């Protein structure tokens, strides 16, 4: 006797939609049991995790701010993962995007030209793109696993940034703090509404979602990406070049991660410092899977995870919950959704 998965047959549309909702509810329930077992008041937890982020305009802005880079990166990652190419290094491409874009701001400091911001965005995007191509080239040329190389390159990017802001790019008037000069206004991506915090990056992310939907669902490129992931021999039969496709999906996911990086540095941080990352590149992998590898799904998943992240910041103070708990909740959520997906297609049976 062994526990096995038995296929269930076709899945209805309604079920496809309700499954992640049920999975989400299950995850919340399990989290509540864990909190109860830790002796935390559930009422306060509910307020912290759901009411505060979703009812105040401050909370909603913060959620959208965090969801912006997560969505941008996840939309790119969806292409790579769908093609069965594992870009685990979005965090590194994000850092390089911020670093290259930031470099434009630092080296044009004082010019105040209108072209500074566009140049930053382009440079950051290109930086992420080229950095993303490295694991693809290594895979095509030497057969090196892109999972390992893309992950290792994260640390290279982080250390490079660390070195630059402690060394050559350090602001001489920053009392030896490891950070660059504060960007001037021409290098800042501004808020959508004057005085607000929500910046134009959110609009860029929304556009990326729309473009992602169209590219994946309608274009020959999107078809080639999915075909390569679903059945490589069929993709080869179709004449979709495996190597070119590897380059393309890494370039695309790297570019979007780089764009997210430069947007974050320009709009939110306003300078280069060692900790521009906040692990958005890693969290975006969860976002992509939670969103079931669909751009709209990724947008929704990014919002959910942002709510969780915002809530956890307050929870550290109000409930004295360690931040690691937040990571556990993220894992719980991902597991629930994946299990829900598996259980819609298969049922458990003793064989």
């Amino acid at each position, binding site marked *: 006797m062994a526990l096995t998965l038995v296929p269930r047959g076709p899945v209805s549309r309604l079920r496809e939609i309700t499954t992640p909702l049920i999975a989400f509810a299950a995850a919340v329930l399990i989290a509540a049991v864990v909190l109860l077992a830790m002796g935390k008041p559930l009422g306060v937890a509910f307020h912290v995790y759901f009411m505060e982020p979703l009812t105040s305009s401050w909370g909603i802005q913060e959620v959208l701010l965090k969801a912006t880079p997560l969505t941008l990166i996840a939309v790119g990652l969806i292409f790579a993962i769908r093609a069965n190419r594992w870009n685990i290094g979005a965090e590194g491409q994000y850092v390089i995007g911020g670093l290259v874009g930031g470099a434009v701001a630092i080296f044009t400091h004082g010019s105040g030209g209108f072209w500074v911001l566009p140049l930053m965005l382009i440079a950051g995007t290109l930086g992420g793109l080229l950095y993303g191509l490295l694991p693809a080239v290594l895979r095509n040329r030497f057969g090196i696993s892109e999972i390992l190389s893309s992950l290792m390159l994260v640390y290279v990017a982080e250390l490079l940034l660390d070195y630059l802001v402690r060394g050559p790019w350090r602001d001489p008037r920053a009392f030896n703090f490891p950070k660059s000069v504060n960007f001037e206004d021409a290098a800042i991506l501004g808020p959508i509404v004057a005085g607000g915090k929500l910046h134009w990056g959110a609009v860029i992310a929304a556009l990326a979602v729309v473009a992602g939907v*169209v590219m994946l669902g309608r274009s020959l490129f999107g078809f080639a990406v999915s075909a390569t992931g679903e059945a490589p021999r069929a993709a080869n039969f179709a004449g979709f070049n495996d190597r070119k496709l590897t380059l393309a999906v890494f370039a695309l996911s790297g570019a979007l991660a780089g764009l997210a990086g430069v947007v974050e540095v320009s709009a939110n941080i306003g300078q280069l410092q060692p900790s521009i990352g906040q692990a958005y590149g890693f969290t975006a992998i969860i976002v992509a899977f939670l969103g079931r590898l669909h751009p709209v799904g990724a947008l929704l998943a990014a919002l959910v995870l942002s709510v969780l992240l915002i809530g956890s910041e307050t929870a550290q103070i109000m409930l004295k919950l360690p931040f690691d708990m937040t990571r556990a909740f993220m894992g719980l959520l991902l597991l629930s959704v994946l299990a829900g997906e598996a259980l819609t297609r298969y049922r458990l049976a003793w064989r």
Partner: protein
Amino acid sequence: MSEAPPRVPLIRCTGLTKRFGSLVANDSVSLTVEQGEIHALLGENGAGKSTLVKTLYGILKPDAGTIEWQGRPVELPNPEAARKLGIGMVFQHFSLFDELTVLENIALGTPGARADEELAARVDRVARTYGLALEPHRPVWTLSAGERQRIEIARCLLQEPKLIVLDEPTSVLTPQESETLFASLETLRAQGAGILFISHKLEEVRQICSMATILRGGKLIAHADPRKETARSLASLMVGEGVNEVKTRHGESAGPVFLAVSGLSVKPEISHGIPLKAIDLEVRAGEVVAVAGVAGNGQSELFAALSGEGGEVKAGTVRLRDRDVTRTDIGERRRLGAAFVPEGRLGHATLPQRSLSENIALSWHETEDVGGFFLSADKLKAAAAAVIKQFDVRGPSSDPRAAQLSGGNLQKYIVGREIARNPKLIIVDQPTWGVDARAAALIRQTLVDLARAGAAVLIITQDLDEAFEMSDRISVICGGTMHPPVATATTDREAIGLRMTSAYERTAA
């Protein structure tokens, strides 16, 4: 029959019924096998043969019906129980580890055995008794399909079964290898074993079987003595009303050479793939050329080299009309008028989880109007609908996923998809492998008609009947070498069968 039949049959099944959802795979089927009998189980693909055999071997549980073993009612909850009773099974698809030796593979499939001298002696005894030539210490990947099958049979015989079930054992064998197998089966039969022989090759059934059970659409159609029937009468029992034979008109003058392969040597992509050695092959417009051969002699590698899908060309050229396409990809070859139908229907020729209309894009996007960079769902749907209509593709909905179709319907769709592109050359690997008789006849006729309309047609097939039925010329591939073609009208099965087991050696010019 010379000897008197024993009073108690070896196995008797009554009223066996097995449903899968709404499909009734076996509908109250009865079957009796006596000791010392070679009993044929006949039927098209999908007739319910496999379901019945899996029930007998304890893999499937019947929904209704009884099984009696030597007069006693029995339950067969799993294959182990079947083996304990004395039922042995030789599957159609080998379950052997390529890297291991013959003896190691046998030890793995035999409970409690180790690959030692004692087992070697037992294997040797069995092999001698039944005329199964085996070299115990050869690694499996060096063996032909016939040799591999002998391992499976020896493995089965070591358990000293009283009933041996063979699932389409000759489908991968040359005519000569089949004869060797039949001699072994005859020895077994003479010793009193019962043999259930699944096949759709009617001639060989008439040659060796003394009783036949015929299934169609899950129902028992007849019990018959095949020696008293003709191949034609058996076929009509199997298929229902008569199947049309392919109408060919051999000997018409073929046009100019469209595909020319010369001195082609290819290093395969996968380890243990078959390297192609100095292959010469020509296909003219208006003719059907068949490449016959036993599976695993370089067919997949040849298809990949001709389609441009893979393999590293070491020497030689592939030409389409006057263009050297040796180094070009499959898209460029399609633009020059070529079309390809690979052996694998799901996961190679189609994306299994995509609709038939989406699957149009797979082979059309280089040459046909499917909307450009942004695919047009309307154009794809129209193209798929036309193929579905023209080739009578039947599925559960108007635009089903590829995996939802039966093998025959999917193959009709795939062949139809390529023919709808009006190719000047079509290369088809195993055109009707595992396809029901009606679909197979349609596919063969379609390809022959395409050649008569002026296209060059190359089929790669393991099915000698198919090669003879369709082709104007036959080449044989063996061990990665290609025998020069002969006109189909001037050769016979024996001559082709001999070539299938010996590599071609170029005589000094």
